[in-house]
Every structure is written in structure tokens, then in C-alpha cells.
């Protein structure tokens, strides 16, 4: 659905040149939810803006839904943009129009007749769950409601691709989740391809099938979300994965616990996919002469399976502890011994 080939974007200013996007190659399949994560300045915003021609690459080509967006101009580009819609961090609604009129705006651009517009707008309002707010102005809506209007507006012309430019970054966690659920719902119901950029791993974890990690204009890591969670390679990816799997204060807590339990071993377990749903701890206690103390744990759901981390303290005869850890290894669970007491 989307092919990005050898794309480079250089911004020239009087202070010199900045390579915002550097040698990026990417394929996004039809019906996929593809996430791009990176800190601000990583080039992800420039990258997504090249997908609908708001930015033109300096080198390389961008093809979306059969249109070479990096090349076409004028009315062809405008036509193509109706199939590649976009939602924004700050919603970008027209304050002078009501919810209904805002949604109708993209239909007006597409030249849809008034009668059909009214009908379609009503459908969309139902789809995004804004019944009863049709005649409100954006200033009377909450952030989440505004983004729902943005989504309805973006979906009005039955696009093939939806681009989300930090679409949840201005929302509180609860609203973020409801918007993400809406996006997944749309993806499943309409088979829409979604590309989103974000700096929150939570968003990637929750809805993306595949993820690309960007740093300094380059893609440093790419793969199915679960694989990236299971086995992050680049340093930046590890930090992003930690955002989700380990709460902020984990490291401190663990250091404290290691001091607290001078005997035995503190072990970090990483569960991926099916293994996350097995009764590992029960088996451990039944089969080995060890005591297991659960220190901290977290399990997260991704689009391709669940992923969890668990910190346990294993105590007992050194030999039994070693055997127990051996057993955990054999269960296809990631094991990392934090320290020997």
C-alpha cells in the first residue's frame, strides 16, 4: 500500500543543511497499522508528511495507494490526498464550523452534493460516537471529542490510508486509549491502512502490528511489535520498550530489593506471547525446593500477543536455585539474573 524508497529529505537554511530524513526504505502492507516511534527531531514528522505530499523528498520516491506522491502535482495530488487522509496532534478543526460542518468540509472539497453530504455526515457521527454533539462548536468539545471529529473528517471520503500525526499526544491517558480503540475498530471494520507516528511506546504497544524506530533521520530498527518488544536491539529501542514494560521507579525498587534480600537471587523474567499465559511460578515451586517471592510484575497486551516482565526473588539451596533457573530457561522465557547476593 505504501512504498518508501531511498528517501532523503534535506532542509536548507542559512545556518546550513539539516538531514531530517536519511536513506529511509519502508513498505507498509494493506490493512496494517504501522507505527513510527522516535523522540522529537528524529524525522518522523517529516516522514509522515511526505506520505501525503505536504513535504517533497529531496531524493527517492514515495508511493501511496498507487500514486507516486513524491512526483505528482496540482489536481492529481489533490485527488490523491482525498485517499490519504490525516489527523493531527492539535486536531486542526475549523472553529467557525460546527461538528457537522467540520466533517462536511472534506466532503465539500471532494465535491459531494449537499444531500449526500448530510447523509454521510450522519453515518460518520455515529461511527465515531459523537451523537448529540452534531451542532456543537469545537470550542465546546473536549480534546477526545475534537479528535473524534478529526477522525470522522478524515474518514469522510473513504480513504485508503489514514495518517496519524501524534494524534494522541495532546490527550490524557484515558482519552488516548479510547481514541486508540476507535482506530483499531476502524482498521478492522474498514480494512484501512493506518500509519502513525508517536513518541509513546504505549501507543505502539496498544495498536500497531509493526513498528519502525527512528533516530537521527534513520530507521534504526523495524519489525513486528512483539518481536521488537521481545528482543530490542538498538539502545533507543530498549529505552522505548522500558517505557512500557518497566515502570519508572522499577530500577530503584529492584536495587533496593537486591539489598533487602542478601540471600538467593533476584531474577527478571521476560514473557512473550504464549509463554506469558503459562503457570510458570506454580511449576517452579512444585518441582524445586525453592521459595519464590514475587517482587513486581507487569503484563501488556500488543496487537500480536502479550508481553510481560516479572521480577522474582528465588531462595533456597544454591544447587536448587540453579536448577530452577535452568528450568525457566527451558520454558522459553527470558531470564536475567539481576545480581548474586
Amino acid at each position: 500500500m505504501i512504498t518508501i524508497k531511498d528517501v532523503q529529505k534535506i532542509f536548507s537554511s542559512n545556518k546550513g543543511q539539516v538531514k531530517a530524513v536519511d536513506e529511509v526504505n519502508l513498505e507498509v502492507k494493506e490493512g496494517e497499522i504501522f507505527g513510527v516511534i522516535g523522540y522529537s527531531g528524529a524525522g518522523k514528522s517529516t516522514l509522515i508528511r511526505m506520505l501525503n505530499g505536504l513535504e517533497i523528498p529531496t531524493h527517492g520516491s514515495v508511493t501511496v495507494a498507487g500514486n507516486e506522491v513524491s512526483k505528482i502535482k496540482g489536481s492529481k495530488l489533490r485527488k490523491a490526498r482525498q485517499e490519504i487522509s490525516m489527523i493531527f496532534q492539535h486536531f486542526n478543526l475549523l472553529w467557525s464550523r460546527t461538528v457537522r460542518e467540520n466533517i462536511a468540509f472534506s466532503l465539500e472539497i471532494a465535491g459531494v452534493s449537499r444531500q449526500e453530504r448530510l447523509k454521510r455526515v450522519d453515518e460518520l457521527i455515529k461511527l465515531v460516537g459523537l451523537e448529540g454533539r452534531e451542532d456543537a462548536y469545537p470550542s465546546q468539545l473536549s480534546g477526545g471529542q475534537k479528535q473524534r471529529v478529526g477522525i470522522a473528517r478524515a474518514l469522510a471520503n473513504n480513504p485508503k490510508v489514514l495518517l496519524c500525526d501524534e494524534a494522541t499526544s495532546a490527550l490524557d491517558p484515558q482519552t488516548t486509549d479510547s481514541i486508540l480503540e476507535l482506530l483499531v475498530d476502524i482498521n478492522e471494520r474498514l480494512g484501512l491502512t493506518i500509519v502513525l507516528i508517536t513518541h509513546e511506546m504505549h501507543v505502539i504497544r496498544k495498536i500497531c502490528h509493526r513498528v519502525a524506530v527512528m533516530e537521527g533521520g534513520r530507521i534504526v530498527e523495524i519489525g513486528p511489535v512483539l518481536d521488537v518488544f521481545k528482543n530490542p536491539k538498538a539502545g533507543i529501542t530498549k529505552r522505548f520498550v522500558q517505557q512500557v514494560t518497566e515502570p519508572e521507579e522499577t530500577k530503584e525498587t529492584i536495587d533496593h530489593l537486591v539489598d533487602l534480600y542478601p540471600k538467593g537471587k533476584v531474577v527478571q523474567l521476560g514473557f512473550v506471547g504464549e509463554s506469558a499465559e503459562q503457570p510458570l511460578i506454580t511449576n517452579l515451586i512444585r518441582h524445586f525446593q525453592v521459595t519464590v517471592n514475587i517482587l513486581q510484575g507487569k503484563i501488556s497486551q500488543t496487537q500480536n500477543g502479550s508481553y510481560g516482565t516479572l521480577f522474582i526473588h528465588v531462595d533456597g539451596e544454591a544447587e536448587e536455585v540453579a536448577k530452577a533457573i535452568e528450568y525457566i530457561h527451558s520454558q522459553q522465557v527470558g531470564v536475567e539474573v539481576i545480581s548474586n547476593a
Partner: protein
Amino acid sequence: MLNEWSPNVKWDSMWEATVETLYMTTISVIATFILGAILGLLLFLTSKGNIWENAAINKIISAFVNVFRSIPFIILIVLLIPFTKFLLGTMIGEDAALPALIIGAAPFYARMVEIGLREIDKGVIEAAKSMGAKTSTIIWKVLLPESMPALVSGITVTAIALVGYTAMAGVIGAGGLGNLAYLEGFQRSRSDVTLMATVIILIIVFIIQFIGDIITTKLDKR
């Protein structure tokens, strides 16, 4: 009672002068609104980072606007006498005041339009582009409606300035309340005529401000 207070006021000529003033103001406000909006839009669209970015055209319009905005109105009228004569064949009467009024006020209003347009969130324009909007659609359905409260409050201020300008134009023969106050009031030392003309001008100004405020509040949904 009014006649007691102002024995020299001839009400029919006062009424005639009021109509003349209203006529000059109305026509010049409409023309200023259109011309100023066009100039303001051009200033905005050709500025850096916008749809028709063009430094040369932007500088030319900007220079034109600045020059005509800076000339004191009374001098502008005199300067434009040949132009007015060429255009209308005369330099006396209400119509003769119009070119100077419009050329004097439109650049002033154009700057206000530009400021109003600049206040529009860039993201909204980008959103319209991302939906495949043409430039004309962006102008008519995004730029103008989104800046409408600023455009209306700007034209209110300009209209009030224009009432003042018509009075000045009146002094050099354009008719209206300014003309009356000067010829009938000042030159014949009938201060009651001057005072009454002033009161009527004030009433006109208050009404303009009142209407402008109501429309602005009504339009502003932010």
C-alpha cells in the same frame, strides 16, 4: 426645544448633509472592505511560508500599502485631485471624495486583514491542504471564515476612521457634515451648527461601533 438651543440650524440641510456623510461612508466602507481584503490576502499569501510565497510581490504590495498608509489624509486628497478629475471629471461633490477615501483607508485595512489572517492556526490550513483543498477553497472556506471576527472588528475601526475622513473631505468641497460644520458653522460663526454636526457624527460613530461589536461577538465561536 432643539430649535431653541440651536437657532441657526436648518434641519433640512442638516439632514441632507447627514445623508451625504452616510453615503460617502457606506460606499467607501464597502469598497475598502473588498480592496483591503484583497490586498491583505495578497500580503498574507505571498509572505514567507505561505501558499503563494513570493518575496518580490510581497515587498511591492507592502511598499504600496506603507506609502499610502503614511500620507496624511488631507494631503492625500490634494495629491489625488488630478486622479479624481481624470476618473470622475470633477473634484466637487460626494463622489469626488470616494477615490481618496478608499485609497486612504484600504491600505490601512489591508494591514489589519493581514494580521487577522496571520492569527489563523497554520495547522488548519495544512489540514485543508491534506484533504486536497484548492487554494481558492482555502481562501473562501478557511482563511476568510476563520478570520471573520478580526475582519469585522477591523472594518469597524476603519469605518469610524472613514467617518472622520469624510468630514475632512467635506472641508475641501465634498459635502456632508464636515462641509456643513465648516462652511455654515465655522465660517459664519454659528457654533450651534458645528456642535449639532458633531453630535450627529458622534451618533453615527457610536452606531457603527455598536453594530460592529454585535457582529464580532456573534461570529466568534472560539
